């Protein structure tokens, strides 16, 4: 047993680095109240984890008796998650909203590393026990962080709504897990798959269990109809946390969902010999369920975003719509679709964090997140105006920005899987989304600033941060070969013959 644990620990260095950083930051908080010091210590932990992920040998394996899979797929998502966490930690150093709180900054920074740890575990979880635990670690730290500015009424309300929706969703998922366990007698998804493959399972019970488990995933990626918490939490939470939830926890949810559906319900022996697409066990096409979720998420997200006036709330609905586009990639149930989702996440990381960073800057300087605060922003601060324009065009998916590349690969995977109807719905939705993104642009450039609207400059770190997000958003739109190759090389999931 001990040699096995030591062997597994070698695959576990990234998570260990995050754990050590968590303990260090929370202990340092007892000694020092220095916000910058604990922030930097947390960032060092995340950077160390990123380093350990990038130097891992490119072989697939599992750790701790099949609890965690360490493969190309989980490494890719860990890099996305850790990069997003790192960028949000940089935001946190600058955020005026957090500076105003003297208390508990060490706890904030410690919880950020714990959140990163939970999300990394979600990306690799290959046992339903681990899936549940990782989901809860992520969720519980997110509840705390969403309510971090608890003196603000909206932050505490957001946290309460989040904890109620989250607990219900994970309770449903747990009930689904208990049914799957009853049907198959196993918790790790490889044994579950084998038991399902033997064919002595009641299909309707399995469908019920699968749908209950999908509730847990749907809540984490905020897909309609499990999205009700999203707008409220995104609006009420500190901007930094909203930014992190919109990218990293969505990525972790997608990673866990893709692995679960790919391993548990796919026919691993016979499936995909000719086409490369996954064949489903037992004659139930799970991707049709996901297709319904995708279409609902895109359509509802985009339509409701049309009449939002709070930018955080608008971006919340936009993130629901983006979850819909990414679900389309999963619906194809093919390696092309999965690599398209991975490409989309890298692109989404830069453009969405960029948009939230602009929201944070404007909120810090004007004290408002409303659309009216953006009136005349293009004249008051041209650089912010131009940066926001590029982020929003990229979110719409207009070339030559990175968002176009993300959508292109999703749609071409769908065409490869002969799902033309979904391509049409996705394209129509992109057109709808153009309307509300352009509404912000119209406010920034065509409206005059309200009298007394301050002209504000940017400090050097703020310009550097904007450039850090802006350059990849443009560069990945023009030169995306390496990203695509890396994503396509990383679709290997442990236990799946390629």
């Amino acid at each position, binding site marked *: 047993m001990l040699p096995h644990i030591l062997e597994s620990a070698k695959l576990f260095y990234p998570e260990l680095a995050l754990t050590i950083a968590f303990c260090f930051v929370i202990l340092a908080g007892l000694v020092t109240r220095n916000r910058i010091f604990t922030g930097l210590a947390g960032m060092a932990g995340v950077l160390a984890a990123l380093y350990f992920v990038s130097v891992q040998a490119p072989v697939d394996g599992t750790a701790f008796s099949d609890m965690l899979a360490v493969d190309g797929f989980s490494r890719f998502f860990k890099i996305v998650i850790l990069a997003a966490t790192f960028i949000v930690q940089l935001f946190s150093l600058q955020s005026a909203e957090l500076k105003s709180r003297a208390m508990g900054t060490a706890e904030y920074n410690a919880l950020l590393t714990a959140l990163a740890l939970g999300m990394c575990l979600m990306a690799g979880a290959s046992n339903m026990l681990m899936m549940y635990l990782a989901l809860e670690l992520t969720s519980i730290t997110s*509840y*705390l962080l969403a309510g971090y500015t608890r003196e603000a*009424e*909206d932050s505490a309300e957001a946290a309460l*709504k989040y904890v109620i929706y989250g607990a219900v969703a994970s309770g449903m998922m747990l009930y689904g897990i208990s049914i799957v366990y*009853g049907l198959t007698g*196993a918790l790790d998804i490889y044994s579950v798959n084998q038991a399902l493959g033997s064919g002595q399972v009641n299909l309707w019970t399995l469908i019920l269990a699968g749908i209950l488990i999908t509730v847990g995933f749907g809540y984490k990626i905020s897909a309609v109809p499990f999205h009700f918490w999203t707008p409220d939490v995104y609006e009420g939470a500190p901007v930094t946390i909203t930014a992190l939830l919109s990218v990293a926890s969505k990525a972790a949810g997608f990673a866990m969902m893709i692995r679960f559906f790919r391993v548990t319900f796919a026919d691993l022996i016979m499936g995909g010999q000719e086409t490369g697409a996954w064949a489903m066990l037992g004659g139930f096409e799970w991707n049709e369920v996901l297709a319904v979720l995708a279409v609902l998420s895109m359509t509802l997200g985009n339509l409701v975003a049309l009449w939002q006036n709070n930018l955080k*709330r608008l971006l919340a609905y936009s993130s629901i719509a983006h979850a819909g586009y990414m679900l389309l990639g999963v619906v194809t149930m093919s390696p092309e679709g999965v690599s398209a989702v991975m490409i989309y996440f890298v692109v989404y990381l830069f453009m969405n964090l960029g948009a939230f960073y602009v929201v944070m800057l404007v909120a810090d300087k004007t004290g408002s997140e409303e659309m009216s605060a953006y009136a005349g922003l293009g004249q008051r601060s041209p650089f912010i105006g131009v940066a926001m324009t590029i982020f929003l065009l990229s979110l719409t998916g207009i070339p030559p920005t990175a968002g176009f590349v993300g959508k292109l690969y999703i749609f071409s995977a769908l065409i490869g899987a002969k799902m033309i109807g979904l391509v049409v719905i996705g394209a129509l939705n992109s057109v709808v989304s153009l309307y509300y993104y352009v509404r912000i642009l119209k406010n920034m450039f065509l409206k005059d600033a309200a009298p007394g609207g301050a002209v504000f400059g940017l400090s050097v770190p703020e310009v550097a941060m904007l450039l850090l997000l802006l350059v990849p958003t443009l560069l990945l739109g023009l030169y995306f070969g390496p990203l695509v190759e890396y994503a396509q090389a990383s679709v290997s999931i442990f236990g799946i013959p390629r």
Partner: protein
Amino acid sequence: MHLPVPIEYYLALSAIMFITGVTGVLARRNAIVIFMSIELMLNSANLALVAFSTRMGNDAGQILVFFVMAVAAAEAAIGLAIVIALFRNRETVFVNDMNILKW
């Protein structure tokens, strides 16, 4: 393994508990009662897991139950802490009154 009570009884009780929990979450407006209903949902899953585990002579389910109990305690602690934070601002625990954020 032989169970003195047939497994169907356990599963029926577990299903009733789960449905009671879901109904409680949907119907009650007091945040603390909602948390109690959530506990009921988690415990219904625990009951099902333990029953299956004993029936099949497989320990994995019972181990999961230990973790679920720990997680449920953590979640209840966080949930009640948030309710207290909100009560200090608003002097209410009714979710109907939590309406600053809405479309």
